[in-house]
């Protein structure tokens, strides 16, 4: 499989605080990569560097083969049309309605007739479970979970090949989280989609992620399939998977009629 994103030798520092030290990561074509890590461990910062919003102090970030720091403005623009980003807090345009937020990227193409834009935007809203009655609302009139879903609809508007999700299910009720998982799975079946997802939600991680990258101690302490990761001895991994919550999620994942996907680790923390 080919590589969609490659991060090599990434170092980040804010003042004296070191966030990343010599971090390497590759994201493969068509996979869902889950990034986990403690709060403040630098997940969002890593994402911002993959998006080219922050410049790394040292190291190279390549997306679709383009080095974000040296690519020409034209290349960057073309590439950016093919990724979608869901920010941690939604980042909806507060002066636009829900409908206009989703229609904006479509209008910016300056190629589609307005009736088609309307249908496409409503389709995307429909897909994320936002009813037509919410379309004329302003972002300040939405609940936190709805903001997330509208932001996801906007991220999906241009049929991205690469999707960045920063804590997509944080703030969603369990039912919405499940329909979110379903949605991503459907999208993967219909179109080729690579997903980079930061999440704290073990259920989402277990049901979506092909590989998991664990960010701790300023580097990636483990990258691999979930059943490999749970067996690695590291304090953060222990507390994540072997705490009560983690055990419950893993048990639920194995409880299905399917053959067990994740083998329980034999050691007890």
């Amino acid at each position, binding site marked *: 499989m*080919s590589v969609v994103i490659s991060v090599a030798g990434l170092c980040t520092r804010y003042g004296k605080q070191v966030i990343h030290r010599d971090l390497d990561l590759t994201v493969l074509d068509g996979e869902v990569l889950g990034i986990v890590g403690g709060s403040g461990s630098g997940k969002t910062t890593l994402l911002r560097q993959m998006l080219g919003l922050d410049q790394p102090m040292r190291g190279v970030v390549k997306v*679709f083969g383009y080095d974000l720091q040296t690519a020409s403005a034209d290349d960057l623009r073309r590439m950016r049309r*093919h990724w979608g980003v869901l920010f941690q807090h939604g980042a909806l345009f*507060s*002066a636009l309605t829900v409908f206009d937020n989703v229609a904006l990227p479509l209008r910016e193409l300056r190629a589609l007739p307005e009736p*088609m834009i*309307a*249908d496409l935007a409503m*389709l995307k809203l429909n897909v994320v479970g936002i009813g037509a009655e919410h379309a004329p609302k302003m972002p300040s009139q939405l609940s936190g979970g709805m903001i997330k879903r509208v932001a996801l609809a906007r991220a999906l508007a241009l049929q991205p090949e690469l999707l960045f999700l920063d804590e997509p299910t944080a703030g969603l009720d369990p039912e919405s989280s499940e329909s979110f998982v379903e949605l991503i799975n459907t999208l993967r079946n219909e179109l080729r989609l690579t997903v980079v997802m930061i999440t704290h939600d073990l259920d989402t991680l277990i049901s979506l992620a092909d590989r998991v990258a664990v960010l701790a101690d300023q580097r990636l302490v483990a990258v691999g399939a979930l059943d490999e990761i749970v067996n690695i001895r590291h304090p953060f991994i222990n507390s994540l998977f072997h705490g009560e919550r983690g055990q419950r999620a893993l048990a639920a994942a194995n409880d299905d009629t399917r053959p067990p996907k994740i083998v329980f680790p034999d050691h007890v923390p």
Partner: protein
Amino acid sequence: MSELYAEREQLPSIATTDSPTSAVALTGDWTLDTLASRMRPLTQQARRYSRRAWDLRDIGRIDDAGATLLWHAWGAERPAALLLRPEQEAMFTRLAEVQKPPQARRRRAWSALAPVSRVGERVVDVIDHVSGFTTLLGQTVLDIARIAGNPARMPWREISANIHRTGAQALPITALVSFLIGIVLSYLSARQLKLFGADVYIVDILGISILRELGPVLAAILVAGRSGSSMTAQLGVMRVTQELDALAVLGIPYSLRLVLPKIIALAIALPLLVLWSNAIALLGGMVAAGVELNIGYRHFLSGLPGAVPVANLWLGLAKGAVFGILIGLVSCHFGLRIKPNTESLGAGTTNSVVTAITIVILVDAIFAVLFSEVGIP
């Protein structure tokens, strides 16, 4: 290294024959990317064959954009004969269910009453502002009364920070503007006075006009533009980010913590700025008078107390305090009315500055009428 999939896509195409019974076969990739540059020809072609049998099974990739294009060409319904792959089925089912976006707010139909109702709306708007402003004023007075008995609760820190920001940091710009205005005023007056040989009256003209009018109004306008806008924007951003709500649930009344310190600080800082502006403008005037009329500095300064009754100075300072309170009230009033979106933030800040300056000039005119007998020799 992977390249963009979009760059490897096949062009979409429609194949059929002229015979009206032959099927329409689609090939290539029908995605947003391949379609964006060929919208018009493809739509027209698809529309022409909309009554025929359609075969979509040989399409490479199709996404919502491709499906929507076909759907519109078919007239928002499935053609009688349509061959699909199973995964395409779901796409068209979704499309059939999609609702129209709610109509953008309809423009009100024109009617003969439109101008009247527009005036009415404006009046209601103004009444709303006036009542909001009065409430804020009342709230401020109540706050002062409440903490007057308990000076420990006075937000000293905020007051001193605000004095620093609105007063001390405004000194350079006020000095520059006042100095230049002083020079211009003095130069123009001197040219006129010379014609009548009334050179010595330059001291009277400069003294009265600067101390009574120019100093206070100049300082107030600069402060309204500089500090008024930032105060409105600060409160507005706090509304957008829900910081005002956070303060409220912590039991910290924001009128006390945010509004009162700003008003008190402006009531203190603006008279001081007026004094500063007076001094610098007179300095500028004195320099220009020295050059133009050969009036020595010593002569100018010693003539000043005799020519200008000191009441003018006090009147100017009092005006400064009143202007300061008004600017503070207006900018807080507009700041608290900002709705949680960026557009309202921009509009609110503009309105705040325009209103503050207008009110300053209005109140200045009222002062001029009320105190017309005071301080004029």
